[in-house]
């Protein structure tokens, strides 16, 4: 009897994925500047969606305040690069670490709340972060700050190279994020998470430390979200409290993406992001209507097909692109 993880579909998907990845790395040579920008945006949303999904779909921690860490990462990066003179490529990971560190006391506070109250608690935290940022004159206070040209140039000399660097950074962050989440889910901890998600009481009776597991997931997610945040605002070249901590941009869209794509699966956020951007490019730039439409679709999905688009596909075909579930092979048929 063996426990295997891959199926033939997931093996094929992995191979295809590798090829796709190589093609994407080469993008600065075959894509236009606008396409590079778009792809970079997609990678960052895939990252945010994957992280939110880990938190909510796997650990059961529904946060509507992840913008706290997006903004924290952005401001952290700006502070390190502008005020402390740290090189860009060092400032980004440092901002991520800072995000993870600040998540520790935050978690200790808001883990006292459960369910929907936890969710609103995360919102309060985001508000506090926003208000504090608006009170910090060194980072521009309420009106924000712009990244000085010198720092921008330090990334690379030519504009083309800078665009390429920003693109590669985004791609790298996405691979790092999805890879990390994948490894977590594949590990013992990941199994614990699935057990917790399916039945918390049973999981606890098996000796799984629920609090520690959730805490770990929360802190790691915060750090990686901060990393994405730092990168977002490196690209925007400008940061302000409202943009950094925008619930619409960093939470509403992300949640809708994950719900529609398929919550609780690794493939869901990716599919959801692709769908989101495909729709956005075909619809004219109508932010408000788009949000309403997405909201309606997300509600409909939640009521009628809670496993989302990927959930429906997987139910029909049994396909799994990421080898995550464990199959037991080789059990003989029972007698009689």
């Amino acid at each position, binding site marked *: 009897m063996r426990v295997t993880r891959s199926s033939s579909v997931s093996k094929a998907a992995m191979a295809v994925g590798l090829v796709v990845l190589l093609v994407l790395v080469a993008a600065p040579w075959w894509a236009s500047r606008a396409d590079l920008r778009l792809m970079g945006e997609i990678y960052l949303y895939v990252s945010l969606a994957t992280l939110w999904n880990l938190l*909510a779909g796997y650990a*059961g921690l*529904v946060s*509507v305040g992840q913008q706290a860490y997006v903004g924290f990462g952005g401001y952290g990066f700006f502070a390190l690069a502008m005020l402390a003179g740290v090189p860009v490529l060092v400032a980004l990971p440092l901002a991520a670490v800072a995000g993870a560190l600040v998540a520790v006391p935050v978690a200790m*506070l*808001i883990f*006292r*709340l*459960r*369910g*929907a*109250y936890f*969710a*609103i*608690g995360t*919102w*309060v935290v985001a*508000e*506090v972060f926003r*208000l*504090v940022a*608006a*009170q910090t004159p060194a980072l521009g206070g309420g009106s924000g700050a712009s990244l000085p040209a010198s720092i921008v140039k330090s990334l690379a000399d030519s504009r083309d190279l800078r665009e390429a660097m920003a693109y590669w950074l985004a791609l790298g962050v996405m691979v790092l994020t999805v890879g990390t989440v994948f490894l977590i889910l594949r590990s013992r901890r990941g199994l614990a998470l699935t057990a917790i998600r399916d039945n918390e009481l049973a999981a606890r009776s098996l000796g799984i430390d629920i609090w520690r597991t959730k805490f770990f997931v929360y802190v790691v997610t915060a750090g990686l979200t901060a990393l994405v945040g730092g990168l977002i605002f490196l690209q925007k070249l400008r940061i302000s409290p409202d943009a950094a901590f925008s*619930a*619409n941009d960093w939470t*509403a869209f992300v*949640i*809708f993406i994950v*719900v529609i794509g398929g*919550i609780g699966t690794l493939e869901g956020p990716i599919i959801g992001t692709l769908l989101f951007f495909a729709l956005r490019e075909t619809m004219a730039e109508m932010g*408000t*209507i788009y*949000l*309403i439409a*997405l*909201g*309606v679709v*997300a*509600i409909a999905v*939640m*009521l009628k097909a*809670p496993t989302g688009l990927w959930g429906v596909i997987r139910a029909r075909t049994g396909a799994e692109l990421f080898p995550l579930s464990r199959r037991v092979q080789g059990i003989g048929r029972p007698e009689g």
Partner: protein
Amino acid sequence: MEWLNAILQGTLLGGLYALFAAGLSLIFGVMRLVNIAHGDLIVLAAYLGLVISAGLGIHPLLALVLVVPAMAGIGYALQRGILNRTMGDDILPPLLVTFGLSVIIQNGLLMGFSADPQKLQAGALETASLSAGGLTIGVLPLLMFVTAVAVIAGLQWMFYRTALGRAFRATSDRQDVAQLMGLNRAHVFALAMALSLAVTGIAGVFLGIRTSFDPSIGGSRLIFGFEAVIIGGLGNLWGTLAGGVILGVAQAVGGQIHPSLQLLAGHLVFLLILAIRPRGLFPKMEG
């Protein structure tokens, strides 16, 4: 004297926060549902008040006569049509659906009314004040506070002295067994939501009279209501009033220290209470 005045203003403001919170507290008590769209529904009520009072040329407080039943109807339809389908053991559906509703309402209002700040005109009431012992008490804040106390007293009376209140308590205790009594669960939940939004209607109109509003402020109203509930303790309506007052006073004192610290002071007091008394000051039930 300024400090005393600030504390007084904060206390009265707490009445408004308690009104924000009462509806939230009610539906959590009856059906363990937290409505993330609650704040946006308060704003919706304010816009409803605007449309009705401007359209009929009547005073906003008079418009309450129409706003409250309208909001109650919206609440009943919302619960029966959509939210009842999310009730169950899984926490994700109600959370995500009410989140979606929040975004839809906010953006719907944005589309309908633009982002321009609006205000309900209450005429002389807005500036009228009473003097007592060197303190000036605004008539409007006093009215808000008294209304909040009356609403909470009314809700308590309803809960403990009427058949509807019995039905709410029984359904909250044991949904299944309540059905055995002939209570249609879907209907009871919808009535609770209708009542919650009726209170929200009052809160929204008062909000609109007190400050200018626009579609985006729903989120922070929800947070104030939520903080009042948590500070006061779950399942206790009078506790919610106390929570609202504490929040209002914290904000007022913070604002007295420095105007930009007003909101932050409220949040910090909330976080402090969460840290040292996670169940709130006067809890009556578990989260």
